[in-house]
């Protein structure tokens, strides 16, 4: 935990410097008749972030926070595996949105999660995998007219839309 606290402080400090550099692409000083330049607000806020990171590192060195004193591991093996499985499944679903669209990715994600991670029966898994996309479609696309990505399944929806409209 102690090393993680330092690493996060340093990474966020570097990120603050990057934000300062990006902000400075626009003027950060006073422009006559225009007021503060477009980059001033994010630049000085990023500078503030950097100061906070320096304070975090100093407090770490002086062991002033519970995290900087803790000798616990930041993430044990089991937690890391759970994190990878969940974050990986979620990333996979978002990636599949581009290929199979929402109505292909959501059932695949639910099958993986409910059956293989949750250990639920095929009956329950199948019910959720079938009902969730239908409810999502009816609520978002038909009732609220918000179009979700469809990927390669797009042509399949033409007859469904012509039925509703």
């Amino acid at each position: 935990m102690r090393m993680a606290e330092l690493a996060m402080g340093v990474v966020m400090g570097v990120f603050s410097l990057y934000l300062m550099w990006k902000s400075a692409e626009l003027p950060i000083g006073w422009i006559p008749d225009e007021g503060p330049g477009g980059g001033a607000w994010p630049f000085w806020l990023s500078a503030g972030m950097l100061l906070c990171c320096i304070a975090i590192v100093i407090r770490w060195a002086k062991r002033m926070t519970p995290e900087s004193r803790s000798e616990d591991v930041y993430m044990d093996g089991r937690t890391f595996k759970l994190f990878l499985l969940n974050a990986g499944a979620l990333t996979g679903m978002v990636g599949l949105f581009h290929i199979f669209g929402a109505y292909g990715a959501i059932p695949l994600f639910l099958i993986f999660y409910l059956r293989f991670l949750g250990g639920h029966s095929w009956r329950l898994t199948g019910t959720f995998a079938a009902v969730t996309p239908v409810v999502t479609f009816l609520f978002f696309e038909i009732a609220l007219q918000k179009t979700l990505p469809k990927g390669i399944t797009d042509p399949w929806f033409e007859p469904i839309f012509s039925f509703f409209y």
Partner: protein
Amino acid sequence: MDILSLLLTGFAIAFEPLNLGLIVFGCAVGLFIGAMPGLGSVNGVAILLPMTFLVPPTGAIIFLGAIYYGAMYGGAISSIMLGIPGASTAVATTFDGRPMALKGEADKALIAAATASFIGGSVGVVLFTLFAPPLADVALTFGAPEIFALMLMAFATFIGLGSDDIPKTIFSIFIGLVFGSVGLDIISGEPRLIFGDIPGFFHGINFLVLAIGIYGIAEMLWTIEVSQGDVMISQATVSVRRILNSLRELTRTWKTMLMGSFLGYFVGILPAAGATPGSLMAYGISKTMSKKPETYGKGNINGVVAPEAANNAASTGAMLPMLTLGIPGSPTTAILLGGMVIWGLEPGPMVFTDHPDFVWGFIASLYAANVFALLINIAFIPAFIWVLKMPFTILAPIIFVLCVVGGFVPTLDMHDVWLMLIFGIVGYLMRKLDYPMAPAVLAIVLGPLAEPALRQSLLISGGSFSIFFSRPFAGVIMVIALVLFALPLLKIAKSLIRR
């Protein structure tokens, strides 16, 4: 004709069968739209605006007003049940509402939210009825310096929102403000912080992307870590006795409810402020005033009551400048204003004399909408609790799906979904190190209001910060904000001296 007679005439109009039906239907529809992550009152009102052409103008605005109210009530539901704020107005409700749900007190949190919303809405409507024109005049005296001072005061109250680690809390505020400035520069129109020229950054970072990432994905990853993947079932229960007990317990929060209601109403009146700053400030002030501030963020009922009373009072307050001056106080009231213009009603001071039936029918309908929204909300609590009783291994993937869809819907851009995922994962890693994430979400909401106010003020004063102290309202608010900022810094100095 005095106000009471006008109001009674208004009630006669609001209670016509068609209008009453529209109020009940509008409240129910608004409740469900508000409860969906990614959708708020603005979506509900915008989507259903075309439907209003089927009814007379008075019925139309009554219907839209009821949807607005219903959605304000509904926003708290997803905040409490799923930990995902449905709209920016419900962000502050998540801080204590979600911990209450995790402790098996979801019913109590939902009742507290509904009751506080009712009180806030009622106080708002009463103030609206009695003091509409003079309050509108006061609100008009608020210029850029006053708005910036108000935003600064809101940020000052955030300092107390996070953990005791002040540098991490301030870092969280600053990073939220920087993310809020991504997109096009509001004055020059030049692209700003467009990382790698990725087109998705041109429209800025929607607050919901950060909010769903942090409160949806990061929160779920955290819960999965705590449960270690075990099948976890919430202990939430609901019964008439528990509801009555909760209502009895709520009487102890009357001070918080009133504070939230009055504060929310006044902030709601201010042009371009709306309900979100009001609810956030109410939460911050409630915590600052509390004898046990350390219990906030861990399921303190006042942490639910304050923002909910404030956001509903503010939603009524935001209608005041819309109706009396033709200036919308929030995005939703901007759409309501558009509707009024389409129906041939010119908002402004003359609307009270030219169309009294319309104005007073609408005001009376707000009283009725408040009552119906409360009743519908309480009636559905058992159904909401039933959802919570699902095993966590079923609830988790459904919440993940809702997060992804909710992250996509506001902008219809997959870029935002990826961004939300990154925020979720980084937010989880930071949360493990006690970085408070709430201030970042609040800052991304208020940043786009604060920056133009600061820049306009400095432009007016030629770069002098004295403008924030030379105007009476701005000066008073600035001093309060600086005192609020100084308190935690004094605490740090004190601890350093002790060491």
